[in-house]
């Protein structure tokens, strides 16, 4: 597995003068599952859009599979990095589910046969029944529209998939379904996954690596367990670790480490602490 993304000390200034990113640097290996966390305005979306090539850095360079995002054409970048918007309605605009998913591959000037093959595959992976092919996306439920949005990105077969707020507005079970699906893409199909999220329990459960941002800078970058253990740095960025981690961080004097990520783990620690005393 090689290097997928290299963000080489980039800054980004929006046309109105707002500084979105300051000296951001990170490298992502193929097959990683990351979360970008931070308050609104912290730079996580700006960083993601620079990685996908939707924005070009003001200074510094972004390399995606060895291609500089300033130089590679969008049609090529779209096959390397796909960006799934938070609100599926921001990216759906075709009259049928089929045309929506076929839009990207058709833009790549692929023969219609291969377009058909990719649409069928994408629909199968996201679990959209064939019977939806001729439906108008607008009349589907939000959950199904989200699947159409994901399928339309998958049909481009991008190696890196960035998902903006995958669980916002979803309930507990829907969130688990979406995240299990992204995990499947990561493990079975080898996609590198980046989620942008405020949902800390989801980060704890699914992301192997977490990048915490504040004021346009990368504040912390490491294994999720280590990032959540940095209670003070996170507090500065107004990020609250999951409730179970916060509980662990109050129990240091009892030998509970500050980096607990799951309920199961916490129960194990309490159980073994008890046994140790017997």
């Amino acid at each position: 597995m090689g290097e997928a993304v290299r963000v080489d000390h980039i800054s980004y200034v929006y046309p109105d003068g707002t500084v979105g990113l300051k000296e951001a640097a990170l490298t992502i290996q193929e097959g990683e599952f990351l979360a970008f966390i931070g308050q609104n305005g912290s730079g996580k979306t700006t960083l993601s859009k620079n990685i996908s090539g939707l924005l070009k850095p003001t200074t510094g360079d972004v390399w995606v599979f060895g291609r500089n995002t300033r130089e590679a054409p969008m049609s090529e970048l779209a096959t390397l990095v796909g960006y799934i918007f938070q609100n599926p309605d921001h990216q759906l605009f075709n009259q049928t589910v089929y045309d929506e998913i076929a839009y990207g591959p058709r833009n790549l000037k692929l023969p219609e046969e291969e377009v058909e093959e990719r649409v069928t595959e994408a629909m199968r992976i996201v679990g959209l029944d064939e019977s939806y092919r001729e439906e108008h996306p607008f009349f589907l439920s939000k959950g199904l529209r989200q699947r159409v949005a994901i399928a339309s990105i998958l049909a481009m077969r991008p190696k890196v998939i960035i998902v903006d707020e995958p669980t916002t507005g979803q309930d507990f079970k829907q969130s688990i379904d979406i995240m299990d699906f992204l995990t499947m893409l990561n493990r079975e199909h080898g996609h590198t996954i980046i989620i942008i999220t405020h949902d800390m329990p989801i980060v704890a459960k699914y992301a192997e690596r977490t990048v915490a941002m504040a004021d346009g800078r990368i504040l912390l970058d490491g294994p999720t367990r280590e990032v959540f253990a940095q209670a003070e740095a996170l507090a500065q960025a107004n990020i609250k670790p999951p409730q179970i981690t916060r509980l662990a961080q109050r129990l240091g004097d009892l030998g509970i480490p500050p980096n607990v990520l799951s309920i199961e783990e916490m129960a194990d620690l309490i159980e073994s602490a008890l046994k140790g005393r017997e």
Partner: protein
Amino acid sequence: MAEPIIRVEGLKWKYEGSRDWVLKGVDLEIHQGEFVGIVGPNDSGKTTLAMSLNGLVPNNYPGVMEGRVVVDGMDTREHSVAEIAESVGFVFPDPESQFLSMTVEEEVVFALENRGLPREEIEERMWWALELTNIPEDYLEKPPYELSGGEKQRVAIASVLAMRPKIIVLDEPTSMLDPIGKTEVIEVLTEMKRRYNATVIVIEHRLEDIAPLADKMVLVYRGTIPKVAPPREFFQDVDFLLEHDVFPPDVMVLANELRRRGLYDGPVPMTVDEAESIVRGILGRR
């Protein structure tokens, strides 16, 4: 006990064109001054139930209704939405969807002016609502669309509070907000609970924040209400909630897991503070 301010009896509702009942015969009683948390998975009927409390269902939606809903003495089928709105204020998930005015001040006083209240009373109510929602004076001239998400939702709540309704229904007031905005709105709910003796009904997924505030929790699941109880009782059966697609806060699930392992046999904690005491109690044993 006094007559409940809200009585839902055998309510069934089906939107025109839909095959199944969205609400399948639910009963619910809410008393004056109660703070009620409504939880449950999406598409289970929570919003329909909320809209039946201010009469939008059945008055503004085509559909079929059975049973009855009586709110502050009004049968919602016999009174208009405007009449019911005198008693019930409603806050939507998306604050922008309810803004009508060019400035925060106009937004907060809009409905009061429409009612023709005297200027003094309008002013007094406006300041009271702004104070309760923690909106500073220098925001009055700002256009609502320039505010952050949390500020917008606080303005939306202030404009409802200014009407001093006996009942306020909030439909997922934090679902569209970032964590700072969510915290701001939860703080407003906490202030409302502390200082405003209204009946507050909140649909909310953030159980960690609602559990310590609520007097009563209501579970809505697939068009039914399988459980109504005070939070301490409501959250005792963690497995029951998980089976109904509700994920209780981490510390409650932890207590449940410790019970399963035979390490604990007390009640589930409502807060991190309580969980800390429980763990200290377990590990403090010799």
